[in-house]
């Protein structure tokens, strides 16, 4: 093959988004940001690259291994390309917006770059759309973020998102209350995260009653109300029980706002959410095999607390119903500027002939137009099948 095609090869995990997908994605992002704006979230736009030390601060530490680094020849300091926007918004909130009134509601959208994709999710450039709600410890804040995220998903046509509530801290608190040694606790946490009942049974260093409590937490996962009930009945230690009470409050807040929302609780999951502290959540949708997004509460470097949500556009778009093709009008050579302007003013997408062609109709079809301007009026072209 020729050299031009060889140069089209992109590094793994990166791709060109073509028409009409690129425009569609941009429209969906705007719709979601609009839904967040309706809840009072204002948009901020941090840069793509920052000093490494700033990106690693606070919630950024957890994804250090996922960031590309590049040396800044101007300052001689190491810069990193963002792998997540949340740490940047957290930095803005605690620095330039430190005097802004709390609670502070911010939204954002933009691409991030990650060092490694996985076999299941090979993309390394991911477009994130999200919100952060900074400076409120109220559980109503956790519920608001979930409800606003559900609204944003509805705005793009994902009618039945499913929110899975988790508490990344719960298993560590329960293990601490049981006074498990660090190694046993780590093994228990991994086995529970993978829902690996076999590994939990095989784990040495647990008493029979401890095993029963952990296995009970594993099997409690499921619809929100029944899981909260099961957890409240279990003896988990005072710190964990307080967290479970918070969970119950968030579930009832969300229920009263959105009675029909599909809400589940997974008390033993913590993957990838190391920096989160209170109630976290993962968003799924039927028919999409990846997470649509994640969110939860995390501490800021300033000592404040924040909660937020991030949606991944690549996954969200898999769940969005396809849009009907847009109508477009072919303007044969010789169409006047006034006629063309009138068609556009009427809402047509126009494609103009730039030189005379043998057959306007076949040129129109080749350009993918649905209509052609003939005798001063748009006429439909036979649809191609």
């Amino acid at each position, binding site marked *: 093959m020729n050299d031009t095609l060889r140069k089209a090869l992109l590094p793994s995990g990166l791709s060109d988004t073509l028409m009409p997908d690129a425009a569609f994605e941009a429209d969906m992002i705007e719709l979601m940001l609009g839904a967040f704006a309706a809840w009072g979230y204002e948009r901020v736009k941090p840069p793509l690259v920052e000093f490494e030390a700033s990106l690693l601060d606070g919630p950024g530490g957890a994804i250090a291994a996922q960031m590309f680094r590049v040396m800044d020849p101007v300052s001689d300091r190491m810069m990193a390309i963002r792998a997540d926007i949340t740490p940047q918004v957290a930095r803005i909130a605690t620095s330039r917006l430190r005097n802004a009134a709390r609670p502070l509601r911010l939204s954002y959208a933009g691409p991030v770059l990650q060092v490694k994709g*996985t*076999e*299941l999710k090979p993309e390394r450039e991911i477009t994130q759309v999200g919100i952060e709600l900074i400076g409120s410890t109220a559980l109503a804040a956790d519920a608001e973020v979930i409800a606003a995220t559900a609204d944003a998903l509805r705005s793009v046509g994902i009618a039945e998102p*499913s929110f*899975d509530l988790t508490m990344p801290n719960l298993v560590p608190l329960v293990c601490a209350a049981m006074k498990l040694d660090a190694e046993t606790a780590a093994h228990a946490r991994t086995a529970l995260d*993978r*829902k*690996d*009942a*076999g*590994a939990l*049974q*095989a784990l040495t260093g647990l008493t029979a009653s401890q095993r029963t409590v952990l296995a009970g937490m*594993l099997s409690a*996962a*499921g*619809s929100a109300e029944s899981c909260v009930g099961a957890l409240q009945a279990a003896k988990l230690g005072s710190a964990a029980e307080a967290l479970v009470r918070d969970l119950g409050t968030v579930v009832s807040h969300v229920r009263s706002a959105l009675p029909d929302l*599909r809400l*589940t609780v*997974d008390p033993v999951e913590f*993957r990838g959410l190391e920096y989160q502290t209170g109630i976290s959540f*993962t968003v*799924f*949708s*039927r*028919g*999409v*095999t*990846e*997470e649509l997004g994640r969110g939860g509460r995390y501490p800021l470097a300033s000592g404040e607390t924040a909660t937020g949500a991030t949606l991944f556009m690549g996954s969200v778009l898999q769940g969005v119903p396809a849009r009907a093709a847009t109508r477009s009008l072919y303007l044969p050579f010789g169409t006047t500027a006034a006629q063309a302007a009138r068609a556009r003013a009427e809402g047509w997408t126009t494609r103009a002939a730039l030189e005379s062609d043998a057959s306007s109709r076949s040129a129109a079809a080749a350009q993918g137009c649905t209509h052609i301007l003939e005798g001063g009026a748009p006429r439909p072209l036979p649809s191609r099948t």
Partner: protein
Amino acid sequence: MASTNGNGTVVLALPRGRILTEVLPVLKRAGIEPEAEFNDSNSRRLIFGTNRPGLNVIRVRSFDVATYVAFGAAQIGVAGSDVLMEFEYPEIYAPLDLGIGRCHMAVAEPGEMVATDDPTRWSHVRVATKYPNITKRHFAARGVQAECINLSGAMELAPNLGLCRRIVDLVSTGSTLRANGLVEVERIAEVSSRLAVNRAALKTRPDEMRALIESFRAAIHG
């Protein structure tokens, strides 16, 4: 392609071969009976219905069960813990040890080598295996770099033909090792078949998936 996602059917992936004969009685006790053609080994079909409406079964290679379930092409499956350990797919939950297909994974080498070999001095080993990830992790944990030669079967031949000295493979009775003059030197893990469930399926259809898991639980404990 059959509808396998969204609101459609649930697909159960089963491993072909040795494990399948152990899985079928469990399925039966769980109240799941594949249509008759499933048991016809001459059938060219790959996807079969069951007595449960909305539940289909597929037969694939044991390594592929994990892949089908991880990608959500099958919502649930029966996979060996060796396969789950090898891939470590974060999208797979293993909520149930089915207690079938029991064996273990071990390092083996020629009997005459054992006498002279001092594993504490190793910095690098070459190993023939179909589990390169497990092998690398196992040796890395004690500071040894493992260079793996990927084979998909008949591992026991490798030391005899000089491909490399050591293998990592599943051992059930040990007779294949003995017949080929190999000695087990280290046990890496116990292996048994697990019920594997796709994470997104469990989150988005919790009641349906939990009912299925419970029927398997009843089948092995009942």
